[in-house]
């Protein structure tokens, strides 16, 4: 097989993009841990970490360094292979979902070559996200099971059942969006919103359902039952130490970042700049990409803040409340939302 020069450009461009996105995910996850502690402190009238560097901005490095130097313990009674596979799987699935998200407006080089700021614009984009997120359950399941610890196992079972039950209303809420945009392609969904206005304006209920489910999928409070400290000691990562524990904790924050990005893409116009027609500014393609990327990041940061804000407001649900909310409240609401959307679309088309 021969590779043409244009193929090489393609491969290099994508590799750079992948490296940038993974680096960005790690960077944002790192500083989300810092933001989490700062926001928690502010909402509780405290100051938060402020000793490592100015305003404590080196705190995540100190935390990460600490995790690296901790002793790594693999329990004798654990299944060694699965024990290592668990955190790896959690991390990989968290990162893979970022492939289909369009991060910025495509960059057009002087030669006319177009570089979309998206690793892979696959036709079934959003379905890929869903399938990878479903595999993410195994990270928790395998980790909890392989630890050979009753608390880990209980947490893993809880986590798995919670994630499976909340995927359902999430998918149903999504279907209403797909009715409107008529495509599973992430770039097409963003393109539709740039032309017709953000989806959240037409799907407020769907967005709320999607958001609640995203909280549950990320195991964030009020749905952090797999990590319920006061019931399960530490949850599914009870037996983990050192960087394996770090991977689990990091994967949670990356998940939060990615799910914020997905919510922005699906409901808040992706990299679209609201209220203005940016094409009339006459910016060069590079600056256009840069500005749209900044707007995307601003929206994502806002959602990450909302995630943190909710965590420090609402206490954890009881397990039966969690299941009631998922199956008896969110699924009927999502179904109704879906039916109404379908009916309206059918009526408008007539």
């Amino acid at each position, binding site marked *: 097989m021969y590779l043409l020069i244009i193929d090489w450009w393609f491969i290099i461009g994508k590799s750079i993009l992948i490296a940038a996105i993974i680096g960005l995910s790690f960077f944002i996850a790192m500083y989300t841990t810092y933001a989490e502690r700062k926001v928690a402190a*502010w*909402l*509780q*009238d*405290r*100051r938060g970490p*402020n000793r490592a560097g100015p305003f404590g901005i080196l705190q995540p490095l100190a935390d990460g360094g600490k995790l690296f130097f901790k002793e790594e313990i693999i329990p004798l009674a654990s299944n060694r292979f699965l024990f290592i596979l668990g955190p790896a799987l959690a991390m990989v699935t968290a990162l893979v979902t970022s492939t289909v998200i369009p991060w910025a407006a495509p960059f057009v080089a002087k030669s006319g070559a177009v570089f979309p700021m998206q690793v892979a614009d696959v036709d079934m984009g959003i379905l890929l996200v869903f399938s990878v997120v479903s595999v993410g359950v195994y990270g928790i399941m395998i980790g909890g099971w392989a630890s050979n610890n009753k608390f880990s196992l209980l947490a893993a079972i809880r986590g798995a059942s919670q994630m499976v039950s909340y995927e359902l209303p999430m998918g149903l809420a999504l279907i209403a969006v797909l009715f409107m945009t008529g495509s599973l392609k992430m770039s097409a969904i963003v393109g539709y919103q740039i032309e017709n206005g953000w989806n959240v304006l037409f799907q407020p209920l769907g967005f*709320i359902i999607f958001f609640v489910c995203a909280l549950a999928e990320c195991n964030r409070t009020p749905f952090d039952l797999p990590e319920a400290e006061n019931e399960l000691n530490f949850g599914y990562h009870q037996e983990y130490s050192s960087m394996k524990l770090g991977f689990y904790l990091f994967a949670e924050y990356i998940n939060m970042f990615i799910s914020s990005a997905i919510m922005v893409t699906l409901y808040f116009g992706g990299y679209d700049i609201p209220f203005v027609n940016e094409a009339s500014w006459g910016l060069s393609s590079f600056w256009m990409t840069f500005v749209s990327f900044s707007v995307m990041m601003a929206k994502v940061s806002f959602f990450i803040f909302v995630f943190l*804000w*909710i965590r*420090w*407001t*609402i206490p954890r649900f009881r397990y039966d409340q969690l299941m*009631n*909310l998922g199956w008896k*409240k*969110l699924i009927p*609401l999502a179904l109704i939302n879906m039916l109404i959307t379908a009916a309206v679309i059918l009526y408008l088309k007539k």
Partner: protein
Amino acid sequence: MSARLTNRAVEVDRKPMTFLESIYLWNIMKGMGITISHLFKKKPTINFPEQTRTFSKVFRGLHVLNRDAEGRENCTACGLCAVACPAEAITMEAAERLPGEEDLYREEKYAAKYEINMLRCIFCGLCEEACPKDAIYLSQTFAPANYGRKGFIYKKEELLIPHPINEKEAYEKAVGDRATKK
């Protein structure tokens, strides 16, 4: 209902939740409004090493061994402070002043060794009251944190006030409010 202690008691509402209540949305938003309002509130925390709380003039903190106006040590190692100390935190050894040391020690006898164990000390100020020579008093700072117990046994060098003539600025800082009190 019979008479209550206050008239503010509210009957518990045990009605089953309506559908809207059971998706918790409104109450969650109310809660989020409360937490976000705390973002803009004044933080009561004092950033300790950089900022310090102001103490009252009679605050009893770390001990200081006094010098007179010429910079001679007041302490004569009489041991009254150690006797008065209810926590038995003070240890001292006396020595005789040699000829030529008149500018160092005010009286013929002085404390060669003077130690206060800050972990034992209860900062009651009885040593200050017992001292006939005005040699020891309690300042307005407290013992900073330390990594070991040994660090809390303060030697004479740590307790002595800076020399009033040779280290004027440090002396005035150490004296603080006390200078104006007299």
